């Protein structure tokens, strides 16, 4: 029965894969492979460096492994909760399934599978370079790769089981009819999770290199109650070619089965009641203080989008994920032992640059969620725009500002705070804020354009849009723009500060770099918007 219920989705997948589609997606696949390789090289280099540290190398390498899974554990659970609410309660096929002679148990299992795949596919696709880097660094045998993949799959199932169980309980506990309350519950939970996470991460002493290493070692990631500990204990012996211990793989397997079973029990107990309570009610919406506001044509779409954003659980709930990312990000910067590293020349400048690279990563991820998906947000109601006297340029402009304004504000605050925490020089502060502003403009243009080029008006939930192949490609290209811009800026800095004397060639190099920065960012802003506009005008599969 489960296979039968999955068949429509599998057929959909099969029908959407043809030579034309594969050829069209080839550039995205190529970009993905390039990033996979870069990710592998980066991890391998970091690992080689870490393992080379005297006395602590091996311990740090093991610590990094468990810390990776510790962070993944929290985020996968959160992602599972939000995905589970979408797939179990908001999917469009639910009314059809419930009206057919299908056992609830089978519906729950199918939705569990779908929620699991959707919440963890990104982690499942991006973790292999880390595993391979560890394997190659330690010269591990084939058995290691099989074991780590199997353990990771089971680890993801544990998070899915926990996430789904929490989703059922939250939907049951909070007054239904208003799914937003459910998500508010998640917000509270997230806050508690982050609180404890941050508490666990507080380094005791970061004023010296020893203190820094000690504080890393004191990160509370190795509780024997945590799956990140089990997976480290299961994998490391075989990685280091010592004897294989079956105990921890069995612990992981039994927990995966237990949490899946628990999620099914919670589903059997609550699902039907929750579904009845979650049906849209004919509740009146208060007009509020802006009730009398009448937008003009330029602001009408923007105003409509903002209004929908705050009413659509699927949209505003994503703010929590972003919020969690940013809190951890700022906290991590606070933890950087700049004083301990003060012996290095230009350490502050380097840290400001690293900060910009990392905030560029945040910018790419946030833009995928809020800017790339903005065109698809119209959904199948896009016919309204297409048949009304609204120029498509005006529509795209509105979508651009809808994403650009909050993302830019967020990024400026983020970079300002992190630089402030690091006590960066005033000139560096201005330069980084200027750079981030420029990147926000170009990445917002890129995101809106890409979103218009690959709209998904018939999406099941908006989170799935940013996770699509187009969304991933956008994220990778956006990050490439960030890296290219920052590399050129770093080169300008190098030429300006570190060359013994500024000669003619130095000046030419600086001018060339500046021209390239302008070219890259202008192209990233303008070209996708232009192509997206054309594609959107020709888009016919609307209703």
């Amino acid at each position, binding site marked *: 029965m489960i296979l039968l219920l999955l068949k429509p989705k599998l057929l959909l997948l099969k029908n959407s894969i043809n030579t034309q589609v594969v050829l069209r997606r080839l550039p995205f696949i190529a970009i993905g492979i390039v990033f996979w390789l870069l990710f592998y090289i980066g991890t391998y280099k970091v690992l080689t460096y870490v393992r080379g540290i005297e006395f602590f190398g091996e311990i740090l390498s093991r610590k990094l492994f468990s810390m990776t899974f510790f962070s993944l554990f929290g985020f996968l659970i959160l992602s599972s909760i939000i995905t589970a609410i979408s797939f179990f309660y908001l999917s469009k096929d639910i009314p059809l399934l419930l009206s057919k002679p299908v056992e609830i148990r089978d519906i729950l299992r199918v939705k569990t599978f779908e929620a699991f795949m959707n919440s963890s596919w990104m982690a499942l696709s991006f973790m292999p370079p880390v595993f391979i880097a560890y394997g190659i660094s330690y010269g591990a045998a084939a058995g290691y790769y099989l074991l780590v993949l199997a353990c990771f799959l089971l680890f993801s199932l544990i998070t899915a089981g926990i996430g789904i169980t929490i989703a059922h309980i939250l939907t049951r506990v909070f007054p239904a009819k208003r799914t937003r309350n459910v998500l508010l519950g998640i917000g509270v939970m997230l806050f508690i999770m982050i609180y404890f996470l941050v508490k666990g991460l507080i380094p005791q002493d970061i004023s010296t290199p020893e203190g820094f290493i000690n504080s890393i070692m004191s990160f509370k990631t190795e509780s024997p109650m945590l799956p990140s500990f089990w997976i480290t204990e299961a994998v490391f012996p075989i990685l280091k070619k010592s004897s294989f211990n079956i105990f921890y793989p069995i612990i992981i397997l039994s927990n995966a089965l237990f949490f899946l079973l628990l999620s099914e029990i919670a589903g059997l107990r609550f699902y039907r009641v929750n579904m009845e309570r979650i049906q849209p009610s004919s509740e009146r919406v208060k007009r509020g203080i802006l009730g009398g506001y009448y937008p003009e044509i330029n602001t009408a779409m923007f105003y409509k989008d903002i209004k929908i954003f705050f009413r659509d659980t699927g949209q505003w709930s994503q703010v929590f994920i972003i919020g969690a990312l940013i809190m951890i990000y700022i906290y991590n910067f606070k933890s950087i032992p700049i004083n301990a590293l003060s012996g290095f020349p230009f350490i502050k400048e380097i840290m400001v640059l690293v900060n910009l690279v990392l905030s560029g990563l945040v910018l790419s991820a946030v833009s995928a969620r809020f800017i790339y998906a903005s065109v698809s947000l119209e959904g199948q109601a896009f016919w309204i*725009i*297409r048949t009304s006297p609204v120029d498509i340029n005006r529509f795209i402009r509105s979508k651009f500002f809808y994403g650009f304004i909050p993302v830019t504000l967020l990024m400026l605050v983020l970079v300002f705070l992190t630089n402030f925490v690091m006590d960066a020089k005033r000139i560096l502060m201005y330069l980084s804020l200027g750079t981030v502003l420029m990147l926000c403009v170009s990445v917002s243009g890129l995101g809106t354009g890409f979103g218009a080029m690959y709209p998904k008006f018939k999406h099941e939930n908006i989170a799935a849009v940013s996770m699509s192949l187009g969304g991933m490609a956008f994220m990778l290209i956006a990050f490439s723009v960030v890296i290219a811009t920052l590399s050129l800026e770093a080169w300008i800095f190098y030429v300006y500060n570190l060359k013994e004397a500024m000669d003619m060639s130095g000046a030419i190099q600086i001018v060339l770099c500046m021209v390239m920065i302008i070219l890259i960012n202008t192209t990233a802003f303008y070209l996708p918007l232009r192509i997206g506009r054309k594609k959107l005008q020709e888009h016919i599969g609307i209703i």
Partner: protein
Amino acid sequence: MIILDNISKSFNVTHAVKNISLTVNTGEIFGIVGPNGAGKTTTIRMMTGLIKPDEGKIIVGKYDIVKEAINAKSILGYVPDKAFLYEKLTAREFLIFISAIYSIPKSEALSRTDEMLALFGIKDIEDELIESFSQGMRQRLLFASALIHNPEALLIDEPFMGLDPFGIRMLKGVIKDLSSKGVTVFLATHSLYIAEELCHRVGFINKGSIISIKTREEIKGMEGGLEGLFLKMGS
């Protein structure tokens, strides 16, 4: 007035619409009937500017829907066969939004919104989210949004979908009233008795081509009426 001048549209190798030429006069109600997949919806979508014709041109009022799309769309009202709306807006907010994108001044927009909500019997649910609306209520809201800017031409794809008998009766009255005020109405439907009752002329479309156009009087004089003619043409 709406003029279709030799329009054709193909999707890959399938001819959805073939060389349709037609003039719908000001204030006329023109119905188009035909079997499923005959090309009714594609024709209407080309008239709204959702799809570009491969050949030929469409004039709405005095504007070409492809070359002067914004002008043409500003005098068009469209009611599609599927009621996809912004689910998280209320009926009032939706009508205000539509008024804004048609650049209707605020005072006029507010009075037209109240007028439309009252006319289509949705005044008492104006502050409820559209997601809680029944199919019939959505259809009423669609009509309200298509008429809020006083269009010169109204394109309707399956107008009576999901409406109860009261709604159908009310809507028939609205369409007749619009026609008497000079609004050109083009509707595609499967409800033959409604087409027979409402339309001044009815066109039969099959396999993308209009094979016959009859006036109301001609249809009345025929044995079996519109249904008899439909079955004959369809076969």
